[in-house]
């Protein structure tokens, strides 16, 4: 893993990431994948030769640029999976990170896996995942009878799968779920190595927390612009202290979350998962309220398609619907209580 980039390096990177995401506007998910892959953005975290092997902090400006433009693409899912794919499924890594095929991921579900006749047989239903009708590959958690939690890489293009559209929250990235009935998964697409799973989980939670933040930030920016421009009762809305304080509180919520994201980015490998769980639990608890407040600031306009605030709120709510603050906090509580009960280091 390379070193944490400087602020100047990140700024440079942000400019090219913004340019690349801008160029994806209006493209189909497959065309966007090719564009992002050609720019090297999908493989920026994966080790060489599959990717650029950059520090995870480089993902931040890319996620920011994509969230602000509401990119209809499973970017976080791809970035989070990239190192796992490179280690466990190199040929899929090559296809996905170059942008020739699109990968999406579910975070939850109730899929069981069991060996039968040289294949892993899957049964059950996945949790919701974005870009459900446009992806070639699905990375989904499964529960193996003896090995415990694992991941399966499922070929969505293969015959016999029917993705069920789910929910209408995220208009930019339509979601769905997949039901398995005795689906035979080639053994090479079953991943149960603990270190890989834990590293993937840490990356996924950290980058998802980042994505939630960027969506909330975009919604907050819209609210700031709106209250600065609109007048009511003969005054600019921004002059009302009640509104100024709500906006300041929202900004503090993001600033607090930034501390946890930075902490997770700086964490050593053995502390990465705990730090990412904490960052995600905070983001999942705080960002929906920020986007809701931003919508409220627009008054009646906030409830219409005349302003795009609701898209960010939908995107955030869809994300936390697949892994909510309460579930994330359960894990945090477990660690916090254990740590409080452990003796202090001498």
């Amino acid at each position, binding site marked *: 893993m390379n070193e944490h980039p400087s602020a100047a390096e990140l700024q440079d990177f942000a400019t090219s990431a913004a340019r690349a995401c801008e160029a994806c506007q209006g493209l189909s998910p497959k065309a966007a994948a090719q564009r992002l892959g050609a720019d090297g953005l999908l493989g920026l975290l994966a080790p060489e030769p599959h990717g650029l092997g950059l520090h995870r902090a480089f993902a931040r400006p890319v996620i920011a640029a994509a969230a602000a433009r509401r990119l209809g693409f499973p970017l976080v899912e791809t970035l989070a999976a990239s190192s796992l794919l490179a280690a466990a499924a190199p040929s899929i890594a090559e296809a996905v990170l170059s942008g020739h095929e699109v990968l999406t991921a579910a975070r939850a579900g109730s899929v069981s896996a069991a060996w039968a006749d040289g294949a892993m047989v899957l049964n059950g239903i996945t949790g919701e995942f974005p870009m459900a009708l446009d992806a070639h590959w699905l990375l989904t958690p499964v529960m193996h009878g003896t090995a415990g939690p694992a991941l399966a890489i499922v070929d969505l293009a293969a015959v016999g799968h029917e993705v069920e559209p789910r929910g209408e929250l995220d208009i930019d990235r339509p979601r769905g779920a997949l039901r398995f009935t005795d689906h035979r998964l080639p053994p090479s697409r079953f991943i149960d190595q603990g270190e890989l799973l834990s590293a993937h989980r840490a990356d996924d939670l950290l980058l998802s927390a980042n994505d939630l933040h960027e969506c909330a930030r975009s919604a907050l920016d819209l609210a700031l612009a709106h209250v600065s421009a609109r007048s009511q009762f003969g005054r600019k809305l921004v002059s009302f202290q009640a509104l*100024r304080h709500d906006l300041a509180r929202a900004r503090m919520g993001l*600033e607090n979350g930034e501390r946890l994201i930075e902490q997770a980015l700086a964490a050593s490998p053995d502390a990465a998962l705990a730090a990412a769980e904490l960052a995600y639990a905070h983001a999942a608890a705080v960002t929906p309220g920020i986007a809701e407040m931003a919508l409220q600031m627009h008054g009646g306009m906030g409830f219409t398609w005349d302003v795009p605030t609701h898209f960010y709120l939908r995107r955030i709510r869809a994300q936390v619907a697949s892994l909510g603050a309460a579930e994330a906090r359960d894990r945090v509580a477990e660690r916090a209580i254990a740590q409080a009960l452990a003796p202090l280091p001498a």
Partner: protein
Amino acid sequence: MQAQAHGSSVTAADPAAYRLGVRAWLEAELPQHWRADQLGYRAPATAELYDWERRMHAAGYAGMAWPTAYGGQGLTIREHLIVNQEIGRLAMPLSANSLGKELVGPILLEIGSEEQKLRFIPRLLRMEEIWCQGFSEPEAGSDLARIRTRAEKTASGWRINGQKIWTSLADRADYCLLLARTGSLEDRHGSLSLFALPMGARGITVRPIRQMTEAEGFCEVFLDDVEIGDDALIGSVNEGWRAAIEVLSVERATNRMYRGWRFENEFRHLVRVCAAEPTLRHVLADRHYRQQLAASWADIEIVKRYAVDVVERLAQGQRIGQHGSFMKLHWSEAHQRFAVLALEILALGWASDTPEIANARRRFEEIYLQGRAETIFAGTTEIQLGIIADRILQLPRGG
């Protein structure tokens, strides 16, 4: 606490070894009965506390990033953080000269004369002189631009008239960092100056104010024709406030840097009492309380990370601007939330009021009551929200 601003600071060669040294010293020297999380706790008397802080300084654990010429340790803000982390880890009594060490010292280092630095800083570190802060007035609490206490130039110095209020430690302080008007009220902040006011000067009357917590030392101060010398002026006339506000914005981010680690100590105390007491053990298995404990844990990690980030920024010579407002706003509200949670949990142990539960109750009731002041002092919550809106979000004020 901008170490780099004062030159010639050096970093400890081995931070890990340095930390262990601090830890071992505090563990060995801090009496068990002064630790609020231990049974048999009793608060130290003022004289005991002065002596303790004197010993801490002599051992090398006060004035970490201040130049050795003024009694400091000549280290950097990174060592300041390490010492604070170790102080926070223990349920140690609060400093009896915190305004001196966290407000007066940094302001003198920034704008004081060489004579003032040499005169005052070593003495406050050695606990020979205790300081209070004379900023707020009855008609100027949050709005310091309305300060009316006036300092008039005389042939030999300054004559002070006015009143200060909510002045912690004024009944025992040797000096007061006084903010007084030296020009027209219309100039608001532009006509305020800072003085080192000797509290023994003729014309000063100190009256105690009874605090909600019953803690002593909260006062109002009346100033009637108090004559002080020219050398009491800190910085330039009418420029004191402008310079001090720069220091204050840094101090808001750096004062009581141990706070996050002390918060963690309080969290540990609460969880350990729950684990040890049969009537409270169910709390740790109850999802409702586990969720709230997890939220507090996140709050604590945020407080700690703010401190670490601020230290890194300052150590790299970066500015921290108004970001102290985020820290102040967050920790004060998070600490209040945690105190409420602790009282709620401990109330569940009423059926078995063991010494451990009683001790925890005593501690968290005190934290709860004191916590109500934390969103008021050092700039209220509303002031911090205003700063974030005005200076960070840069929202226009006009209608």
